[in-house]
């Protein structure tokens, strides 16, 4: 069961449609809440996640617009306010649309046209560069005198049902993170790392630590055909395994800064241990120390 927490009700409605499409499981329970502001999300989200966990929910999507702010700082804010107090760090996918979730809508003008045939929205190559995509779309609708006018609360979820997932993933990294995280939650997601590797073009994403630990048992060492691969867990840390060279660990500290560490040698047991430690709530700085010691 997946719970979605968003800063606005329309964002929740939109994410519910998208997560349902990406997870490709119509029977899966998807619940959640859209708050009235990001402040309310941060203030009340932790309690709601705890409640959801008590009710058996095991996956969480938490969405907070970047709104001109640094995305990593927002991830840290969400982690401190919601996932860490509720103990759901490893179960949560924190999504920070740049600037707003409407950037995803803007990324696929054809989906908008399908929803409102009179709305000939122009293609936007880099929707995350648009300062206020919500205002941009609604202004374009008004100036184009579309019928009906675009209204985000009504039309975002409708457009979400038609979005070209691959196209939006290419244009919006924040959306790609959602896709990669939710795909990894699919029960049918193949466990062998190499298959994932091939699917994601050299990088393996999974917010599910236990799945990664299981996958490590089946891990094939990088070889000439698969020169590198990486494991990404919950968006907060990343472990890359490079061909016969080193492991690169990329972590985010509590203050939002990132730490990189390389090891000249590695064993799969090292990776498994690190993942298990991270799952227990090990902080980036501590892990770095652990790594150095090992």
């Amino acid at each position, binding site marked *: 069961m997946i719970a979605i927490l968003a800063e606005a*009700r329309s964002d929740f409605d939109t994410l519910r449609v998208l997560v349902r499409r990406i997870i490709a499981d119509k029977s899966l329970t998807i619940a959640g809440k859209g708050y009235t502001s990001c402040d309310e999300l941060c203030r009340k989200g932790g309690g709601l996640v705890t409640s959801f966990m008590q009710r058996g929910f095991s996956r969480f999507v938490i969405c907070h617009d970047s709104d001109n702010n640094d995305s990593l700082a927002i991830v840290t804010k969400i982690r401190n306010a919601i996932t860490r107090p509720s103990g759901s760090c490893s179960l949560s996918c924190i999504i920070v649309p740049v600037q707003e979730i409407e950037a995803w809508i803007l990324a696929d003008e054809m989906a908008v046209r399908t*929803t409102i045939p009179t709305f000939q929205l122009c293609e936007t190559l880099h929707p995350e560069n648009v300062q206020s995509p919500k205002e941009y779309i609604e202004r374009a609708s008004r100036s184009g005198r579309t*019928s009906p006018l675009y209204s985000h609360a*009504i*039309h975002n979820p409708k457009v979400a049902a038609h979005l070209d997932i691959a196209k939006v993933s290419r244009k919006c990294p924040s959306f790609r993170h959602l896709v990669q995280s939710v795909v990894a939650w699919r029960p049918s997601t193949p466990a062998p790392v190499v298959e994932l590797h091939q699917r994601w073009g050299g990088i393996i994403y999974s917010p599910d630590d236990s799945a990664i630990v299981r996958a490590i048992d089946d891990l094939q060492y990088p070889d000439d055909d698969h020169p590198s691969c990486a494991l990404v867990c919950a968006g907060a840390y990343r472990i890359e395994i490079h061909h016969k060279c080193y492991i690169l660990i990329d972590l985010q500290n509590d203050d939002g800064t990132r730490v990189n560490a390389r090891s000249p040698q590695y064993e799969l047991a090292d990776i498994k241990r690190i993942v298990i430690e991270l799952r227990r709530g090990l902080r980036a700085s501590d892990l770095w120390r652990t790594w150095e010691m090992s």
Partner: protein
Amino acid sequence: MIRTFSIMNYRSCTNVVLDLVPNVVAIIGKNGAGKSNLLKGIDHAATIASSQNPIDLNWLSSNNDTFSSSMTIADSDGEYSYTISSILVTLSDSSKETLGLHERLVFKDHAGTEAILIHRQGELAEFPTAGIAIGINHRMPAMSAVLSMFPNKHEQLLKIRRVRDILLSVQYYPLEEPASGTLMIPASYFEQWANEYEIEGNPSKSVLLRLVYASQRSPGIFDEINSLLGDNGLDLLKSIDVVKVELPKPRQSQASGGSPDTETNYSVFFTPSDSLAGAGESFQFLDLSVGTRRIIRLITSLIFDKRSVMLIEQPEDSINLSVIHKVLSLLRSYSQSTKIIFSTHSPEILDMLDPTEIRIVHAVNGSTVVHSLSEADVEHARQFLRSDGLLSEYIESLE
């Protein structure tokens, strides 16, 4: 768009000043404080000012005192200030009588240059910029009077027409349910009404009549209403279908001549969305739920009527919270061209608004008093929202 409004001696509004700068304005306050009187007062003043017929002067003030109303209206050229008041005299027996109207319309361009467009005292009306001074009926508002006398779009009168049309397009929507309704609309009745509507431009209050008109003569509007209520909109209705039905004429009509024994009637059927109860079946308007009817009424009014100002009574009534959230967002989308002023008791709706969009109504010594949040209040409200609360909680704490 109307930006400020004041009214004196209309029902409980003995002296009310209202800031209407935001495109969406919510009127809140306890029952009986005067929210409806305020909405009706705006409608009343706009109706009088833009009336195309002589008005009943006794109708101006409900408490037999000097009625007065002022408003400022902004457009791309500048700002208009319009004032109308009654000329009241006390007779020898101490009774009062309204003898006529005083009106003044001033235009100020962006450079701050003012021009008096109308100066009217009783039966003498001057239109200085147009170089016109005429005698008009003491009960006839000046704007429509001069526009009816000089209908050939005198260049200097275009501004007056613009203001008159904006005020003519202000409408109060109680969204009340009629006790009963006609579900069949005779084609002859529809044609007569439609022709009048196309000349006078005043839509019917009947939602069915408007839907029939849209389907028959304005398919773009019909499609827009269908889209907003349908699968790609609020997801309430799968379709609205206007069908023609041949019915026997009443006996009296049959006896009057050799015309056919049947006449064409229009009927409107509503098919609920696939996800709702009754999916796959079609219903007549009165068979729908109260909330669904209110939403249809609201959306039809918004899209069909294309008002400059919609004055709406408690849009949340009988409507589910998740739907009203979308309806409010929808109203906001259209608020660039239609200013939305509504009364509400819903904390959830308050939480969707900005502090600057709130107007609080109180009753003081029997009179209605309205105020916006002060700049300090707005800042405190924003701090409250950032830290620990909802706008509805903040507003409650003010009372």
